[in-house]
């Protein structure tokens, strides 16, 4: 097992299952081909220039066999890998969100309680987390080998991944997508703490050092923006319809749009609606919302989304 790094997340064991399955199947084929190559090369080596060889041009049964058997094995691998992948892509309901921002060449982590850390990611053992990630400039990629997770961070869009750290310890976080001169130095430490130690860290002194408005958690900031930027003029909090749809329970609500399509209101939809309100207008509402491009920063939008989540 030494060739696979320590399995430090709940997903790691599952991924290792796939790795082992493919390794075993590959090994069988590799050994088969190698043995045959060597054996044939020795057994049928040319002994004289007048060697007679048979005229064999093929064998249908044999060819069918070595088409069908690999096909079946390949489908098995595909399905197994797909099942694990589906698992890796589906965060549980109780996963806690951490906002991750990648920029040349720093990792920034924003926690639910307003804490923010640079190049150090603190996690609680056995607590599922979801990374809600975006990039500031170019594409980066969040990769922790011991967790077997990897996901690119894109500018202008959120991506996500989730896992549950199961082992206390410190792990390397690499940027896996080439991002420029400092790419190979864009590494962070993932520090998984026991639940007790994590609680101490969480309540520790170094809170809120750089949240967009100092001292506010994203939710508090979101609430402030909701009032100050005028969202409250059109969007209610209690489900009543003013001008636009209410924010109550908006995250995860399935919306039908004027063009007949429908979509679940997720982070990307909210973001898009704030920046390009006319791109998707909910059915039954007038297309009157102004764009908040340049008014709300990315951090502000993230905070608003965090606030909206509390309204469910």
């Amino acid at each position, binding site marked *: 097992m030494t060739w696979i790094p320590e399995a430090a997340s709940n997903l790691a064991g599952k991924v290792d299952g796939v790795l082992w399955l493919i390794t075993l199947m590959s090994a069988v084929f590799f050994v088969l081909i190698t043995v045959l190559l060597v054996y044939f090369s020795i057994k049928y080596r040319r002994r004289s220039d007048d060697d007679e060889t048979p005229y064999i041009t093929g064998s249908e049964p044999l060819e069918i066999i070595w088409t069908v058997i690999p096909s079946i094995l390949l489908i098995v691998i595909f399905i197994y890998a797909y099942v694990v992948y589906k698992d890796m892509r589906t965060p549980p309901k109780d996963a806690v969100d951490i906002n991750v921002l990648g920029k040349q060449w720093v990792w920034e982590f924003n926690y639910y309680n307003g804490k923010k850390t640079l190049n150090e990611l603190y996690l609680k053992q056995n607590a599922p987390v979801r990374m809600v990630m975006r990039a500031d400039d170019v594409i980066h990629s969040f990769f922790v080998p011991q967790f077997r997770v990897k996901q690119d961070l894109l500018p202008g869009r959120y991506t996500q991944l989730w896992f549950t750290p199961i082992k206390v310890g410190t792990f390397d976080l690499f940027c896996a997508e080439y991002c*420029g001169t400092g790419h190979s130095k864009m590494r962070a430490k993932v520090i998984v703490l026991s639940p007790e130690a994590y609680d101490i860290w969480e309540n520790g002194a170094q809170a809120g050092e750089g949240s967009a408005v100092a001292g506010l958690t994203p939710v508090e900031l979101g609430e402030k923006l909701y009032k100050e930027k005028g969202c409250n003029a059109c969007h209610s909090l209690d489900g009543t319809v003013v001008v636009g749809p209410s924010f109550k329970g908006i995250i995860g609500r399935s919306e039908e749009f004027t063009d007949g399509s429908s979509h679940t209101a997720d982070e990307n939809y909210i973001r898009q609606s704030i920046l390009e309100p006319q791109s998707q207008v909910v059915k039954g509402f007038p297309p009157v919302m102004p764009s908040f491009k340049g008014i709300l920063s990315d951090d502000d939008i993230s905070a608003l989304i965090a606030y909206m989540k509390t309204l469910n």
Partner: protein
Amino acid sequence: MANNTIAEHVYVPFLEEKKGILSWLTTTDHKKIGILYLVSVSFFFLIAGTIALLMRFELLTPEADFVSPHVYNVLFTLHGSIMVFFFIVPGLAASFGNFLIPLMIGAPDVAFPKLNIGSYWLYILGTIILLFALLKPADTGWTFYTPYSANTDTDVVLMTFGVFVLGFSSILTGLNFIVTIHKMRAPGMTWHRLPLFIWASYATAILQLLATPVVGITLLLLIAERTLGVGFFDPAKGGDPVLFQNFFWFYSHPAVYIMIIPAMGVISEIIPVFARKPIFGYKAIAYSSLGIAFISFLVWAHHMFTSGISEVAATIFSFLTFLVAIPTAIKVFNWTATLYKGSIQLQSPMLYALGFIFLFTIGGLTGLFLGALAADIHLHDTYFVVAHMHYVMIGGTVMGFFGALHFWYPKWFGKMFNETVAKVAWFLIFVGFNVTFFPQFFLGVEGMPRRYATYPQEFKSLMSLSTYGSWILGVGILIMTVNLIAALFNGEKAPQNPYGSLSLEWQVPSPPPHENFHEIPHVTDWTYGYGKKS
């Protein structure tokens, strides 16, 4: 051309038909154009290989003590771009394709000889543009991913424009070959009598023709993004950086097959000759080339499972990726079965062919890890990918390229090389290659990301081992190069058919006359009629 009729029965090797550099650059003889390509791509192979040695030297230790990270980034960009666009895409296809296709199908030349030399001029134009781009070389990696490539202040525009021009060279070559194979076959040379190298070249040419323009327009859009402010890939303007990746891989995955399918064709030619056996499962190998070519258009997003594409798309692409493994596996089994009950002679071309099967099998099987969704999430953009693609590209294509060089060398240049030295070089290349790249699989599984100028201490022992291996590999290639060049000057005169092949190109003198065949041959049997019919 009137004097040709007079000189009809006087044998003049094509190499001595006309002399002088200008006559070479303006020739329309496919064999000479093949040599032009051969020399050019080999030159770029050695350049890019040297760059690779520099990179490995830097990676001997975890810190950036030999070159700075920026220089390292430039080096791997140049290594990748030159290897891919200047060596391996035109490599076998344009050099051996040019030399062999007309000879193998019994034609005097390709369908459009003038277009053929025109393609080569475009290739040269591309290299000149690259030279200018070297004034401020790009540091984007050969994949030119946006938005990085749109923002970096290195000269991405010239570099991509050079690639764009090379793309057109590749397209026109492919076009020429397709038409040649359709229209120029000698009487009796039916599709099912064609040598498998022709089938492979045909499949390759289709990929060149129809995939390359997409990367052309993609790079053009990237240039427009940098110069005109067009924003298709710029999220700030409503564009989508992942779209660039979709477009890029629509070409660049088929490009992998542009690189490997001709090598597969070479192997299918070498093995029957040195085993004195008909190729096993001719039709399966022939049609699997076409099958691979077609499916390869539909697997591109397996380079993008972690890039933020949709799960539905990832699943479909993963499935199609597994489909492409099937025809590949069939080929490997068929080659191995051809050896059964043969009379196997382990001369240098055959050693390269067997080396190909061995290494390509590893390359192919490790591809399964990268096609499988969950496994790829862990392995993507690590050294596992680096090792895999080098097993396919060096273990596959370059082994095929070297095999082809040794196999057709007597025919092309009319000289024999030193066989003992060739075997020693093969051994060093084989060992050096494995020492260089096998440890990288383990590095990848352990999580070492690619394109890292510096790396954590824990990877040091395997990284150093890999660097030592690269030295052995370098020495092997150097010996091979010297051996082949030396043979030009003091090699023995090659007989017409030293290896006893039945293929048409061996039925004319070595080197072939300018017009290939005094009389267009009438073909009555397939190419692989070795062995005793019972």
